């Protein structure tokens, strides 16, 4: 039997199934924690760190990623404090400076409150979120692509750089890739990147907004699509 635990997220007492993560539990209740590398049916590798929350234990708060934090009875989670917003904005700024040529990334940056980018733009094709690798590994069990190299050299590639037979070119890696949708005004040329700030911040990467969205305060501060819609 599935055990239920009580978790307090941003003051709301919610019931969640033991074994699910804080991120999944929060999304189910319409509390939108921004995330990139997490895909609902895949296990999390906790690489993008956008889904950070404050986990309050004995009055002390730890900043941790919610996609790998499992719910536990009596847990107190804060997803929308000044500190979290600041850290998340800085992370999103790093992210969008790395790959401005993705509508999804631009969207996340806007949702996380990035107003300006203080680093020189780079025009990377990949942000190493690992969604494609997780898909290939966990759903198709193919392991046709994986991470190669360390640190700055890290990239996604076939084994030894050659497409193996067991890659059936199913394309699910491409479907999950946040880099496949160019910004509305078209691809930006190297040296001409900018923060577009045009997107309507729809939940592009997760599933559709859950029916039981509770219109959380977080949505307002992140310019959640529903909030933006109702105001205008």
């Amino acid at each position: 039997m599935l055990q239920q635990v009580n978790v307090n997220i941003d003051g709301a007492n919610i019931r969640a199934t033991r074994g699910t993560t804080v991120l999944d539990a929060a999304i189910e209740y319409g509390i939108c924690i921004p995330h990139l590398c997490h895909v609902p049916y895949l296990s999390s590798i906790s690489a993008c760190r956008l889904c950070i929350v404050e986990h309050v234990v004995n009055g002390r708060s730890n900043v941790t990623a919610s996609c790998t934090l499992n719910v536990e009875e009596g847990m107190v989670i804060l997803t929308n404090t000044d500190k979290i917003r600041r850290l998340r904005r800085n992370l999103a700024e790093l992210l969008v400076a790395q790959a401005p040529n993705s509508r999804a990334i631009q969207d996340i940056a806007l949702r996380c409150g990035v107003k300006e980018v203080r680093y020189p733009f780079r025009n990377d094709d990949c942000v190493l979120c690992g969604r494609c690798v997780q898909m290939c590994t966990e759903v198709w069990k193919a392991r046709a692509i994986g991470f190669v190299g360390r640190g700055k050299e890290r990239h996604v590639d076939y084994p030894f750089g050659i497409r193996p037979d067991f890659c059936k070119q199913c394309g699910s890696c491409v479907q999950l890739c946040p880099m496949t949708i160019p910004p509305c005004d078209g691809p930006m040329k190297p040296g001409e990147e900018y923060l577009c700030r045009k997107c309507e911040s729809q939940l592009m990467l997760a599933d559709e907004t859950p029916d039981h969205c509770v219109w959380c305060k977080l949505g307002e501060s992140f310019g959640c699509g529903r909030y933006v819609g109702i105001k205008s």
Partner: protein
Amino acid sequence: MPRLNSFRELEHLRESLRGQRQAITTTVMVCGGTGCQASQSRAVIDAVRDELSTQGLSQSVRLCVTGCHGFCEQGPVMIVEPGNVFYCSVSPDDAFEIVSQTVVRGEVIERLLYTDPVSREKFRTESEIPFYRSQDRQLLSQNLMVDPCSIEDYIVVGGYSALTKVLYNMAPEEIISEIKSSGLRGRGGGGFSTGRKWSECREAPGDEKYVICNADEGDPGAYMDRCVLEGNPHLVLEGMMIGAWAIGAGKGYVYVRNEYPLAVEHSRLAVEQARELGLLGDNILGSSFSFDVDIARGGGAFVCGESTALMASIEGKVGEPRAKDVHTVVDGLYHKPTTLNNVETWANVPSIILDGSSWFASKGTKESKGTKILALTGRIKNTGLVEVAMGTPISTVVFDIGGGAVDGNKIKAVQTGGPSGGCLPLDKFDLPVDFDVLYEAGSMVGSGGMVVMDESSCMVDVAKYFLTFLQDESCGKCLPCRVGIDRMLEIITDITEGRGRPEQLDLLEELADTVSQTALCGLGKTAPNPVLSTLRYFRSEYEAHINEKKCPAGVCKALITYWIDPDKCTGCGVCIKGCVHQAITGGKKEAHVIDIRLCQKCGICRSECKFDAILIT
């Protein structure tokens, strides 16, 4: 040797070995550690061995090739018992003299004694030397007594008696409470209470549990773990056995990096010897305790020193950390409860069991107990491994043990704790070596690296060096570490190359804070420490780089110019010959001039000039 089936048999073996050793009157202990091997100690050992057999002394004199003594600066080092005569910088040619004078007649060869570089005073024994005088060598002194390749040596000096004590007289809970009350904290850098770790692991559900010894030491310039593991592998093994018995583990791993060939070889040999004697395997010494150890070699990734990355590496996966929301004491190696401790932590365990927790707790400060081995390097007179009681002020380590600055320079800062630690300025030198105090000051004890810097070091350049190291060694899995370090390095490179802007300092600080709070593992969380601590204590240097476009220490090439002081230049022409870029011109006996368009700022002219006429601004 036959398998030992009870602790009586072990004691019997110990007695008989001691009996055999009584005939030996003289022992020559030569350091065979990696540091001394680099200064040809192998040749010295061979020469002394040949000399002993030529003079027919092979039977009565024991030549003991030991692990590291710590004073690597003066290697190869040698101690002759009786008399405890300490010789340093020994060469193979000295073998005849040493054997015929010191070994045979007990005469001291003045020439080979250690000479204090300042007072020119000569010291006869190790304990008189200032380098050793202020130390409290609990672990390192055990290195001197044993040949790491010989289990007999270890047994003779009382080895494995802590194991018999726990197997026959102590319940696992008693061991854990003893370790807890000793106040032993992890020596690898985290400083987590070892007793608490053990008790959490013991209480974790599951029958199959593991212990791991972390010997994947990667901090630049630090080699404490290598020294202990290659110098006294049985001590580490005994510690692991005690830990395994306490938490209920049946299998252990020593994860040692492959760049430490001697440590790999010695720990492998130690495991084989212990298996042969039945100290590893099923029903150790006739008890119900079964335990075995394997040696796992690391490929040299710095990040594999992180516990979860290390475990992934042992499992055969890519050495990348994973989220540690469930601690490794519950969900560790192969998803089983695992206790991972550093080499030095394990090595401290046998003495705590034998001498009691109160003995251990009598050393150190309120929260940090015992002794700590530090790798002292940098711009000081005496470099090497030093072991001091916790709470010893940094100034004692740097000035009394380290002997102060070289070349009459003034010491500016000390970098403690390796790449994850921070730089402390001279006015913080009265701080004690203590986990919490150094953490408060923005640095950390870490694994024990201590790099001393003088005026010739630019703190911005130091931060840049450590960031470059961490950027290379980051696994690249999480965004803040991979991109954050890269961006910090980008900003610091801008600053050192004269493109810095004042607002970049705030950005740097904010970014460093973000990385330290959001990174996935310990490497990323501590990566900004070199930046944060230099910004905290040496902000003026950053500001000089940005506002005045000057490098006060004269290190950052883009911000300095070489010029020749015409009053000091005698026109000797040495610098003209030395300059590989033909940037210096001038006739004989007249002041030379550097063409700054051609000058590559290599510094050769400056080191060649005997009149200090070449200046940097």
